[in-house]
């Protein structure tokens, strides 16, 4: 909708739209030339969790959890038990003896929490009749504990004993949690980030949790919360605020307000602002590689360097619709998937002409040190950004007919995407697969001792 308005008014916008939308059918850098469609879900598939090098689990609104072999596309297990949609899923690994165990923790709208063994498909543990359904799960490997966040925050051990819990919070509840150093946990609750501290005692049952601090810098509800590295974590809000926090003293390191807007006469900008749909600036997802944070802002991508505290690159109209999930890969590669049903691959490239983005016909950004600062101050900052780079579209994956909810990247096997069209697609490197097949062909040939 918005894009369409833009296209009508702004020639440049239209140009940009074209360059983004039609990468063309020639995609030499796109190595995903083979796909496998995995069918099994009956409703939107929302979550993918990697279990090990070749297995992953998928879950969605049908309450089913399926375990797959990403290599062969084989469905290994079907974990049935939840009567309503799955709201969160996490892999829970521990080491017992020399063996590494992986289990899956799932939370569902039916107000149950379950622990599954992906090997056997058994529901190992389950808790039902919670006061509220959990919306997020956080596994603390170090403490061998896990936390569920809903209207209250509960701390559990591996055997599903409730160790402690917080008081009932607002109806909004906890939407995201990250682990911080010193046994602290940051939980996003509407517009606030609450810092809790777990106090350990000699026995696990003595564990207690207490609220330490509330961070109230966000002006709107927080949509994404991630750990960047040991020193920092980041949060993004519905109105495009990206705040980088210090992990130790919980102070705001940087505050960015990302607004996709076109340069226009000052007066008009105000009008545009008001007419702009909230979702266009909402930070749907944050991802990081430890140095940079990529924010999915509406249908755009925004790459922010945490240490340099500056924008690295951005793409306002990276997709036709809201971006739901992003990922940073080594060597400046970036993946994003969107409600438009496509996955796009980006590459961070130096701008051929540094002047070009500076003119920034279609990008407006305000950087606020604090929310109280004047907008006019930050507008100037944009052209000053040194070393601004660009995100070049190197390929896209089209296959899903519904919103691509999430993806998981296997280093060797390829990319797994899940979507609202109930499908899971495994995208593979065709050449590599061909090689594998040749290899197994000659192995079989040897086994059979000839044709």
């Amino acid at each position, binding site marked *: 909708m918005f894009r369409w308005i833009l296209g009508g008014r702004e020639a440049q916008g239209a140009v940009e739209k074209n360059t983004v939308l039609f990468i063309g*059918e020639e995609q030499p850098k*796109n190595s995903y*030339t083979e796909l496998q469609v995995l069918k099994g879900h009956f409703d939107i598939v929302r979550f993918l969790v990697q279990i090990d090098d070749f297995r992953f689990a998928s879950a969605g609104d049908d309450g089913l959890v399926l375990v797959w072999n990403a290599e062969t596309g084989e469905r290994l297990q079907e974990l049935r038990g939840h009567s309503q949609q799955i709201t969160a899923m996490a892999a829970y690994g521990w080491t017992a003896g020399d063996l590494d165990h992986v289990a899956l923790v799932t939370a569902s709208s039916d107000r149950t929490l379950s622990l599954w063994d992906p090997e056997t498909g058994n529901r190992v543990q389950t808790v039902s009749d919670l006061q509220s359904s959990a919306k997020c799960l956080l596994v603390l490997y170090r403490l061998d504990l896990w936390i569920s966040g809903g209207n209250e925050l509960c701390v559990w051990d591996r055997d599903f004993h409730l160790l402690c819990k917080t008081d009932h919070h607002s109806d909004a509840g906890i939407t995201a949690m990250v682990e911080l150093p010193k046994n602290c946990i940051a939980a996003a609750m509407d517009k606030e980030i609450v810092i809790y501290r777990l106090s350990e005692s000699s026995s696990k049952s003595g564990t207690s949790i207490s609220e330490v601090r509330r961070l109230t810098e966000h002006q709107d509800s927080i949509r994404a919360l991630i750990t960047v590295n040991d020193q920092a974590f980041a949060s993004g809000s519905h109105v495009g605020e990206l705040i980088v926090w210090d992990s130790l003293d919980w102070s705001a390191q940087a505050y960015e307000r990302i607004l996709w807007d076109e340069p226009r006469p000052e007066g008009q900008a105000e009008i545009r602002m008001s007419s702009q749909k909230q979702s266009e600036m909402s930070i749907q997802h944050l991802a990081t590689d430890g140095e940079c944070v990529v924010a999915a802002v509406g249908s755009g991508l925004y790459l922010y360097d945490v240490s340099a505290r500056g924008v690295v690159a951005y793409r306002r109209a990276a997709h036709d619709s809201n971006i739901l999930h992003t990922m940073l890969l080594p060597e400046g590669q970036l993946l994003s998937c969107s409600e438009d049903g496509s996955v796009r691959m980006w590459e961070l490239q130096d701008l051929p002409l540094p002047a070009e983005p500076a003119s920034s016909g279609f990008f407006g950004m305000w950087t606020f040190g604090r929310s109280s600062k004047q907008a006019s101050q930050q507008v100037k900052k944009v052209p000053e950004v040194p070393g601004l780079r660009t995100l070049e579209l190197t390929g896209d994956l089209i296959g899903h007919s519904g919103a691509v909810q999430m993806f998981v990247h296997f280093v060797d096997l390829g990319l797994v995407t899940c979507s609202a069209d109930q499908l899971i697609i495994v995208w593979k490197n065709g050449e590599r697969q061909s090689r594998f*097949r040749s290899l*197994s062909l000659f192995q079989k040939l040897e086994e059979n001792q000839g044709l």
Partner: protein
Amino acid sequence: MIGSPDVVAFTKEDGFAEVYKDPWMIPEEFSVPLFPHSGNGNPWTKTSYAKFTKDFILISEFSEQVGPQPLLTIPDESKVCGTFDLNYFSLRIMSVDYQASCVGHPPGCGYPKLNFVEDSKVVLGDSKEGAFAYVHHLTLYDLEARGFVRPFCMAYISADERKIMQQFIELSSEFSKASECLKTGNRKAFANELENKLKDLEYTRSVLHKETELQKMSNGCFSTQAIEKANELANVEKSIYEHKDLLKQITSYPNRKINDPEFLPYESGSPVDSADLGQEPTFREFNSEDQSEDHSIKQRPSYTPQLVKAKSAKCFDKRLKTLEELCDLYFFHQTMDQLRLIEKTFRGDLCYIYTSQIDQALLKKQKITNFLFEDSEWEEEEAEQQFCDGKQTMTNNLPPASILSVEPLSLDSYTSCVETVPIKLEPETNEDRIYGRELTEFSPCDLLQDNTDEGIDAEMKGSLSSGESIEVLGTEKSFKTQGPTVNSNSVANLQPSYPEVVRKKIFTRRTYSEDSIEILSTCESIIPEDLRPSYPSAIYEEELPVESCTDAVHSQTSMLNQAPGMLDECVDESGSNLQVESTCCIGKEDHIYKGSSPELAQECCANGVMKQEPQSDDQGDPTLQADFSLDQATFSEASPAGLPLYELNPNCLSDDVSRMNCDDLSDSTSFMSASTSSDRTYSPFLYGNPITVKHKKKFGQSALRFIRQYPFAQQAVFCLLSGRTLVVLGADEGTVRKLVNALSIFVPKIGKHGEAVKQWLSSPFQLTELLNWKLIGLHRVASPAGSSMVHSLSRYSRYISVLDIDHKTLRCPPYKGSLIGKMVDHHTQIKRGSTYFMHVQSMQTQLCSKAFLYTFCHHLHLPISADEDQDAVASRRTNFLHHQLRYGEDDCRIMQFLSELIKHHYLHGSSKGGTLPVFSFNYTTSFLHKP
């Protein structure tokens, strides 16, 4: 019944001797070849003998009232048989029924026994009429008939003698299927009839009972009337008992048969496939006894019992049931369908049939690649083959004793069968001695005579004229003995070794007789199939357990093993063995053409003893057959069990007479081998709707039109060959379907039923459908629904090419290769669709072989040494494609696609389940092509 005395003759040891002391045998020198072949004569002239225009199937009955009579012909057109005298011919074919059908009251048995007789298969020729026939005798049950049996026969009549002879196995197996179907239906009908009759009887009994009581009451116990009534009652009781017993017998039959590992229900592989669903329950219902009880209950209301008269009408007064009435209607129609299919299958010239059989045999060997462009029927066969293998092993592993535990229905018949086994094997020495002596006498002149036309005279049979005018030219058993060569697998191998074998030709000659019925072949009729499990186990096994086989077999086996090199020397002498056709007697042809192996011949020259060829059959081991070739060494290796001489006859080989060698000792084995060769080529699969060569040939015409009409046809075909889905978009369904069909001949791995092609689609398609369909006919809709279709077209545009037949445009990647140019030539001179299809097929075959080479060339895909990296391998691969195969970039794409298919197929087999389809694609720009 004709059969019974024959059996007696066979089961008596001294009976064999009689066979060869044939009083009517004319000396060899008087016999005249039936069809003197002059080397350059028109091979088709002989058809002019016949009074009918094309082959047909005749069903005749030996009616107890009027004798042999023709019932129907297939095809059912009067012009088919022309002036051919069906009545006369029926008489002929019905006079050679060798079925051992002894039904009635066996001695020592108070009530009738049903004997489940196996069909007999005979080949006979009527040289005067110019008609040759494969005759399949079978017996149906009829409660009203004499002895409860009605002899029928089905005959495949052709003017081409060689067709009958060479397609014997195929014919035999196909007719067996039809017969099995008919008999099943008959048993069902017979059981029903029995049940009804029983109801009648029960009713009669109750009425009589009442009357008796009444008589007793009124006239006293010992009055004449009362005694009469009591006698009548007793008769009825007896009758009930007998009928109950019959019912038990008939209903227990299928169960017994199913226990028999060799029992193959008629339905497999036949065109009635689609009807199987309906048919199976019926069959099962019929099978289990308690269910058949239910069945009868079900039928009960529809039948009102009638009073049975004490004395039934004389047989000549009553009207006999028609064939249709004798058989359950469903099965009757199945049978007719099967017969129609047979007619269709064997239509046409022998060389055509033969060529396609060879073709298929060769094709079958290319398991790795033939799924790409060929009919996928071979897959089925493979399964079938495996199934049969399994059965065979089962059979082979079964010790004869264990078979005896199969409950015989009639102990009498059973024991007599058991006795048959040793009898059939042991006396061979005896009779062959005679046989051999006779043969050696004739040999010199035979050689002289036959050398002259060695290239042409393909007759494997010596024939012998008889005053009685029936020439038995071969028996089924004699075919059996030739087992090893005949498998269609081996046919392929025969060719290369042909020249070598020429000089080993065995000359045979035939006699001409005025009266002119020649029995070309009969089945061995005396070994009921019930016994077969044990019988083949003794004989089929390559390594025969000594105790289970006779000495003759054993010695022969070892001899053959020892003496492969002696073939040459002994051929000439042994050649003569074949020529004598010693019998003209019905029922004795069992011993005719006991092929004797060269070694044996040698032996017999030395000793004056000729051993009869045991019924060795290598069919039991398909692998043996597969590797079989006529190359001497292999020959003897592969067939340690005796080889009949005529196998060495090059003419036989070239004419594929040898095909016949493989015969069915058991129905199932022959079914396996024969049906593989015949079905493969010929069944049009009218019901199951799979895509066959015939369909494809038809599509060839429109394909030809397409490539002439559109300059971008090459691009379209490139899409199909490189695995890019081609969408044919159009508003008119007929046009779209036609074009889709036309293009389907280019689609690799189209699937048995054309799974890779969606002929007509009027809803938007999804990605999942693209995984399976490589060619889609899409309905262009103007309505809003069409917009979503356009959406899916544009959304998946990278995976598809769109051929818009309304606007005559094609949107697809460019093609710059050279491969397709030959296959799809805009200016092709080919006029006929089928020719064009052949052309395409040959190109595809070339592609396949290249793809095979590419796929299985180790160094092209894997590093030679450990320190070599993937790039080196990749460059080697590119080098191979570009420089050695001289393929351009686009051609390489085709090659790679085919190669991936081959790999996938090799790794995962053809099975659909288990492995997910992999969808490969590449990112290339499409262009819009306009005419």
